[in-house]
């Protein structure tokens, strides 16, 4: 079923980076395998070596400190949906994780693998973008933080260097006035459209609006133009502007026509989901 490959089991990020540097395109990082093994079984990709990163220590925890929530790249979806810290601080991410694929995928699949595989019809990247998350990449020569916007380049393509691995995610801890939501819609196994919104509600005014759209096109995208439209407006005014913001977000999704829906259909759904997401957190 799967073609023969060799397995490497390093125990540090530096070792992983060294292996990636040494074996180049003939090797691939393997964590949960929920995306990679499917592609390998289909024969879409083949590798001489898989680098199992699950022996790396300290990448399977969720913790909070100094206004930042740290999520280890090896955390499974199951872990995240059951994290008490996330349930308290980031309920929108918990809800998203509860609805990733099915119970078996959530059991095996890791958040890091989900982001790095950059399958267009994945949920977490879109919400993390709206939450202002940064992704921590490591290689032998050092560590850097990449904003979620800069991380996603195209379908199945990220800005990680060839010898870099994702080790964690940093999300600013939302304040008391912060609200966020992620909604998706689809009729196949994977979503056709995903929309995320985060904002602060200061009295009657919405501030710090961040909107991201995913699944409809090649990669999750921030929608700065729609954010600017809603930012600083009163709740009522923002509600009146939602159709316009939704239309902007629809175009920004770079929707393509495929089995998941026609371009104009997906653009329309973006608007519908944005409106519902906004109303679910601003009432």
């Amino acid at each position, binding site marked *: 079923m799967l073609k023969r490959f060799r397995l490497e089991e390093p125990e540090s990020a530096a070792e992983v980076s060294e292996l990636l540097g040494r074996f180049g395109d003939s090797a691939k990082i393997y964590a949960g395998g929920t995306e990679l093994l499917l592609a390998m079984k289909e024969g879409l990709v083949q590798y001489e070596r898989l680098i199992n990163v699950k022996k790396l220590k300290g990448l399977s925890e969720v913790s909070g400190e100094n206004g930042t929530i740290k999520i280890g790249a090896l955390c499974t979806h199951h872990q995240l949906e059951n994290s008490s810290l996330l349930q308290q601080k980031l309920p929108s991410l918990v809800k998203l994780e509860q609805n990733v694929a*099915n119970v078996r995928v959530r059991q095996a699949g890791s958040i890091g693998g989900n982001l790095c595989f950059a399958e267009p019809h994945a949920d977490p990247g879109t919400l993390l973008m709206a939450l202002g998350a940064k992704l921590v990449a490591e290689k032998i020569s050092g560590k850097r933080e990449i904003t979620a916007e800069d991380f996603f380049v195209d379908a199945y393509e990220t800005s990680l260097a060839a010898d870099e691995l994702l080790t964690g995610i940093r999300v600013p801890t939302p304040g008391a006035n912060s609200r966020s939501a992620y909604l998706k819609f689809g009729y196949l196994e994977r979503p056709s459209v995903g929309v995320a919104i985060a904002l602060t509600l200061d009295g009657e005014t919405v501030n710090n609006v961040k909107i991201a759209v995913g699944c409809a096109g090649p990669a999750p995208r921030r929608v700065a133009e729609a954010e600017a439209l809603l930012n600083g407006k009163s709740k009522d005014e923002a509600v009146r502007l939602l159709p316009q913001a939704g239309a902007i977000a629809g175009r920004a999704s770079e929707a393509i026509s495929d089995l998941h829906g026609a371009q104009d259909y997906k653009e329309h759904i973006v608007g519908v989901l944005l409106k519902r997401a906004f109303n679910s957190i601003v009432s």
Partner: protein
Amino acid sequence: MSKPMTRHADVQTIPVSFTLNGRLQEIDVEPNELLLDVVRDRLGLTGAKRSCDVQVCGACTLLVDGRPVSACTTLAFEVRGRSVMTIEGLADDGKLHPLQEAFIEHGGFQCGFCTPGMLLASKALLDENPNPTEAELKHFMHGNLCRCTGYKKIIESIMAAAKKMRGSRA
């Protein structure tokens, strides 16, 4: 039941020691061997079925440390040091599990192809949530497909088993 395998000198093998249906099992696997193939073809436990092969249908569901996984997309070496349950291990020394009894009593299967996966997934559910609402049950089980469209009876069976198991615990 393990069949002899011819291996080349340079082929990597990984010794895997794990608990299979309560008993210690030791086997050497190649990195690319899938848990489903090892369990079915090398260990002769054919209850788990290969169907969609892409983690959508749940026919190959096994429990690893009590949690459901798709054996079709799990590399066999991953069960090192773990506890695996297949449908063959659900009955206790010939005595059917309450879920199995409930599926029989309530007609929870038609062709039976999805049933091993349905039973193991619902066991995992009831082990962590002995008193699920129907909505919780549907959410947990929505990745286990029945193409005979027998969902109503399956849900009835699981709810009945849950009730019975709660009663026997009290």
